[in-house]
């Protein structure tokens, strides 16, 4: 087995906690005899080149589950959805998919963050909550949160994502449970809600959110990176160090590559390593 395309793959229809999905995964595992399998998250458009990626032999030898994040379709930053390469036996033993033991610093494709208004709000909310927790005392996470909450106006349902992210990082705001009420908002009210909440977040000392115009949002998306952010590279390198002498070599190579791409040394861990939702 040389590349991801050599392994049997299964697309997960919904969330990993969904019992029906787990049943389907088990049926898939029953039908394969390979030691390793690839699980693809819902709404991830896997780039063809991903199937040519060679998993690192050292990591496979240690039996570690490897997660290849997809980039967020609205922000170009890494999402918590992607492709997971894991051992069949590990899934069977856990009765569920394992958490990502190594987050690989390469995008597997694009995750559609806004396939519908409800899903855009929901994914924005979850992301906002997660990033807000990371941002406490972490300047880099705070900057990313400001950016992510400001991006989306170029997309049909992008304002719902923005409202979701902003709601996720503020107490007392609407949650996905309130969707039936939110769904009645017309476009003008939605945009006003985004602006008002962005102002509140700024005034309360939160991230410096500045909702971008459609033109600016599209430009920033185009100018974004084809690579996961530096924290993903650093996090991967840190994990490699734990794998002994060869791991330390691998860590040095990835650290240097990450610093060539990002040319910075911001100490920040967290992005890309959160539980997949």
């Amino acid at each position, binding site marked *: 087995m*040389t*590349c991801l*395309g050599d392994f049997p793959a299964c697309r997960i229809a919904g969330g990993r906690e969904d019992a029906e999905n787990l049943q389907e995964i088990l049926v898939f595992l029953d039908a394969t005899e390979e030691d390793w399998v690839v699980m693809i998250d819902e709404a991830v458009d896997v780039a063809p*080149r991903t199937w*040519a*990626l*060679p998993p690192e*032999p050292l990591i496979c030898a240690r039996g570690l589950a490897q997660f290849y994040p997809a980039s967020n379709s609205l*922000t*170009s*930053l890494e999402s918590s959805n992607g492709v997971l390469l894991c051992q069949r036996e590990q899934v069977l033993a856990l009765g569920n998919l394992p958490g990502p033991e190594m987050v690989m*610093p*390469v995008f597997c494709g694009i995750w559609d963050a806004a396939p519908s208004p409800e899903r855009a709000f929901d994914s924005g909310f979850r992301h906002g909550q997660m990033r807000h927790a990371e941002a406490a005392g972490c300047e*880099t996470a705070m*900057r*990313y949160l*400001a*950016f992510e909450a*400001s991006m989306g106006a170029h997309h049909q349902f992008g304002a719902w994502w923005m409202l979701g992210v902003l709601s996720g990082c503020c107490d007392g705001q609407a949650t996905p449970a309130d969707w039936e009420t939110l769904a009645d908002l017309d476009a003008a009210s939605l945009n006003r809600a985004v602006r008002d909440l962005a102002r509140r977040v700024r005034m309360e000392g939160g991230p*410096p*959110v*500045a909702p*971008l*115009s459609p*033109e*600016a949002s*599209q*430009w*920033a998306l*185009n*100018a*974004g*990176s*084809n*690579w996961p*952010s530096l924290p993903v590279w650093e996090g991967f390198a840190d994990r490699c160090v734990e794998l002994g002498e060869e791991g330390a*070599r*691998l860590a*040095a*190579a*990835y*650290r*240097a*590559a*990450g*610093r*060539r*791409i*990002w*040319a*910075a*040394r*911001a100490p920040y861990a967290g992005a890309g390593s959160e539980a997949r939702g």
Partner: protein
Amino acid sequence: MEATRQRPGGQVPVRVRDIPIVFLSYDEPWAERNWQDLVSMIPTALRVNGVEGLDACHKAAAEAAGTEWFITVDADTTVMPEFVELELPEWLFEPTLRPTWYSRNAVNGLVSGNGSLKLWPAEIVARMRSHEEAPDGTISIDHDIEAIEEGRTRRVQMPGCYSITDPARTAYHAFRAGLRECVYLAHILEAFLKEGRQGDERTAMLHRVISTWCTLGRHHPNGAWMMLGARMGARSVLEQTGWDIRKVNSYDWLEHFWNRNIHARFGAPGTTGLELKGRWNPRLLDAELRGQGVWLRDHSDLDIAELGPSESRLIVESDVMPAVRSANAVDSIARGFQTGVGVPQDGAVARTLFEEAAAMFHPSAFCNLGELWESDSAGSPDLERAEWFYAAATTLGNAFAPYRLARLIRAQGDLSTEEAARVRDLEKMGAERRGMPQHDPAAGGRT
């Protein structure tokens, strides 16, 4: 020429502070302050001031340092203290390499070679004929390291960023910086497009960088001037009017151009020459900026947008734009150490650099690592590892890996029917990718 390896003073390890640092200034009003900041951090720093011409100025820096290697800091650039303590790998000290630590632009946030910190071998500087000293008929608006001795002299982008460059502390200097940089970048872009390299990684990178210079900046007091310079610079090249772009090498010409075409149009009455002191007609400037943007959007594939100050600030401060980098360049330097072209043959250094390029999934780095493991240049040969790297390079689309993998399998002898079929498939793939020995210039084949 035989390359020799001799580290400064023979000290191990060498840190940046062990090497002479030369501050280069010309007419920048803030130069004295930056110089004082540098001297307070590095008391032994040297200064070259007011030397006209970028070729002459670097030769003056070499003379001031009087050593085999020296580091230059541009007047626009502020060095971070961590740089001084940075430990430098031994392989950098080759007279054919010019290492660079990219700098972050204070206006648009780009991390690129503009305003970068550079480690110069005095030998390269002595042989360099760039800018005002370029041979007749050649266009030189950069240091042209690769042109000094093709295939042997190279720029080396180092990981990390240890400086901030702010060339926009007056309207004139902001305009000049944008114009010069985008003339340079658009000139390279134009050459790439003429070579039919529309789809390649470096072309996409150039588009992104020029677009950024032309789009981000309205949040900065002089950012619009930098953007105007950038837009006019890119247009002046892409419009193909026959304008001699080498003029941007002359600061006299730039000053004249500013006075006649920019200050005369946009400067407020009562301001003189290079000093606008924040007094200009912002509406007229913005209209011109937008007009230049329309031309660029209509006549090129550049992605130029009109962003407001708060939008521009948010994007720059979010730090979401990657640096200007090339996995191919890392692979190419590693190849030099693998083959001994321009630098001494050194399998260990080659392996380290190939592994960095492979971390960026650069296909040829995998193939080259396969070659290292097949030979004994990375230690003892490891054919299993070589086979894995060749196979990985093959799936990633490298042209030469299928043949090398086929050769490796064939060399194992007594092939099973399945292995023989695999070898045939690989050779067919190699032929389709034009990656057979006769296509491989490194193997002495025809291209």
